[in-house]
């Protein structure tokens, strides 16, 4: 059998193989540069990181948070409900490297900014299980013992050509890596004009308390409270990051509204994504001590 020339000519073979590899490379890797990060991608309001946020981002990279957390929300119904508005190219123009990740051992963080108050993050980063008992996220308390080097951070800002004020650099003195990572968390997703979560768009399906005098619902509400609220309001409503919740302070409709829609300014997340039935159960649980 006569063999093709390339089987006997290594140089020819290498040239052919290189050509074969380059076709797909040029089309799918080189060409997209003409589409991505162009004017068409631009989103008003997306700003580079400030020095403290950048330092936090580098802590995120160093600790490999991206091995458990993604930072892209896909345009899928459940995903938008869970994490908020889906991600667009223009949000990432300042990200070198990108931190989209490939695994969700933990939840997506693209829209974490503003979801929780700072205090929540400080406590959660230091001891995640103190807020979410069955979490498997490592504890990062040691970040509080490590300072930020202002001069080094300035150099990073220069390399990335991010704008900054001298005072911002000076302000880094005395800051810890914990301050930085919390600042970075609060920046994520904050530049978008859209709501962090798309949920409140749906009005409550049940506008009236359907569970009055329903002991089973109160028990379920208790379980839901333990899972979603106890981290901030204490296991027995005594308060913590959020205020103490005494049953006497509210009427049931108001309570429903606060839980369903949240108090975004004050650091109280919205729980519309749980659905109105479950929110009503929690309302009944909180009000149970005064008897309904």
């Amino acid at each position, binding site marked *: 059998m006569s063999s093709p020339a390339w089987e006997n000519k290594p140089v020819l073979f290498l040239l052919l193989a290189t050509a074969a590899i380059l076709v797909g490379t040029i089309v799918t890797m080189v060409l997209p540069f003409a589409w991505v990060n162009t004017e068409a*991608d631009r989103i008003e309001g997306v700003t580079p990181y400030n020095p403290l946020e950048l330092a936090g981002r580098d802590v995120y*990279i160093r*600790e490999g948070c991206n091995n458990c957390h993604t930072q892209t929300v*896909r345009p899928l119904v459940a995903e938008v409900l869970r994490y908020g508005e889906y991600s667009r190219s223009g949000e990432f123009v300042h990200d070198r490297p*990108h931190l989209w990740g490939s*695994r969700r051992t933990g939840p997506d963080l693209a829209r974490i900014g503003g979801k929780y108050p700072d205090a929540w993050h400080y406590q959660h980063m230091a001891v995640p299980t103190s807020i979410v008992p*069955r*979490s498997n996220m490592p504890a990062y308390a040691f970040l509080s013992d490590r300072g930020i080097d202002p001069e080094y951070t300035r150099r990073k800002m220069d390399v990335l050509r991010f704008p900054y004020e001298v005072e911002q650099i000076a302000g880094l003195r005395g800051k810890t890596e914990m301050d930085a990572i919390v600042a970075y968390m609060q920046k994520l997703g904050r530049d978008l004009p859209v709501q962090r979560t798309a949920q409140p768009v749906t009005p409550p399906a049940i506008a009236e308390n359907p569970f009055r005098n329903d002991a089973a619902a109160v028990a379920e509400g208790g379980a839901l409270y333990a899972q979603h609220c106890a981290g901030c309001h204490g296991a027995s409503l005594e308060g913590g990051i959020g205020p103490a919740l005494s049953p006497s302070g509210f009427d049931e409709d108001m309570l429903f509204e606060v839980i369903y829609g949240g108090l975004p300014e004050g650091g109280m997340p919205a729980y519309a994504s749980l659905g109105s*039935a479950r929110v009503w159960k929690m309302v009944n649980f909180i009000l149970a001590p005064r008897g309904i």
Partner: protein
Amino acid sequence: MDAPHYNLGIVRSFIHWSILWGVVAILVGILISFQLVNPDLNFPPYLTYGRLRPLHTNAGIFGWAIGSFFALYLYMVQRLCRRPLWSDGLARFQLYLFNFTIIVAAVTLLLGFTQSKEYHELEWPVDLLVVVLWVVFSVNILMTIFKRKEQQMYVSLWFMAASLIGVAVLYLVNSAAVPVSLFKSYSAYAGTNDANVQWWYGHNAVAMVLTAPPLAVFYYFLPKSTGVPIFSHRLSIVAFWSLIFMYLWTGAHHLLWTPVPDWVQTLAMAFSIMLIAPSWGSVVNGYLSMNGQWHQMRENYLVKFLILGITFYGLQTLQGPLQAVRSFSAFIHYTEWVPGHVHMGALGWVSLVLFAAFYYLAPRIYNRELYSIPLANLHFWLVLIGQLIYSVSLWIAGVQQAGMWHAISPDGSLTYSFMESLVEMYPYYWARAFSGLIYLAGVAIFVYNLAMTARRGKPLMPAAA
């Protein structure tokens, strides 16, 4: 002796070191598996999951897989070119540089020096070491090929040469970065571009490290083990060229539904499905080479490793294209399903083929018969069972997790919170951790068997080499 004086010493050294790094990879894999069920096993700052997972993948891919391919390329190139290595000195230097690089890589990863890109975590000074290592290796292999004594290049040499170029192009492009300090740099690409370049690299690292090299090994060691040639040369040609052409189009199947332009995603999806053909070209070629030889599955432990290996490759290359379909990706992307896929490839396909090659070489590098074939069989069953438990439990886990993430109640709310889905994963994480221990037991027997071969195996008759 009319045979040229082959350099087997360097092959033996690379085998020893790659096995060592393989054991490290498995031990770290087991540790991070337990960390996922018990976060108290994180020991900050150096030994947390976020720093150890890249150490695991790097030790697995660079230490175990690439280290083994160094050994086997250096062996195969001599046999297939019928001449000794172009430079023994360069090969020896490569061995030192390889181990030095792996050690530096491990230390810097634990210190938190990372570019954060999957399978390209190493910071720029370590990157440079890798580049030098690859150049040294490529020059030696290619010079040996240029000065070969056998006119025609066998299939294995095609896969080997293609992977040398492929890895070089991928690695160089993806490593472009601007240094800030000795161990910190920022990517030359931003955002969506950075992601697209990274997964062009990431997927083709699979092609050029976890597909082409083990195929080179398979095409060489299957005929050597069975004593019958590969079924069809023509099929090998078609499978080779279409494989290396198509792979490069598919990177964006890791980025379906993300902001990467739609047409790039669609091309990736289409080419991923087309990839079934060239992948199965090799699988079918392997199976047909067994015509009339299937009894060897019972009698020849080497064949068992190789045929099971190519079978997992066949499954892997059906499952991969399925994952590249948009609707399926919407479901399983980001879930536990994916580590199930990964480890069928890493533990099933790649490692099984490597075990076979090393068993085949054991008598040649130690000049002794293999110490125990029953132990080799036990090794086979343990790693097979370990890997199956690993992959199957995580596929189930992934489907359950995806189901919980996407479940929506009649009132339009999410049925499950994230934590409810995580808690459901813990039993599967336990299963995975134990499957790792079973796999480790298999590998321990392998190491024991090789060590006993070196020390106690029956010496070979001089003619048998």
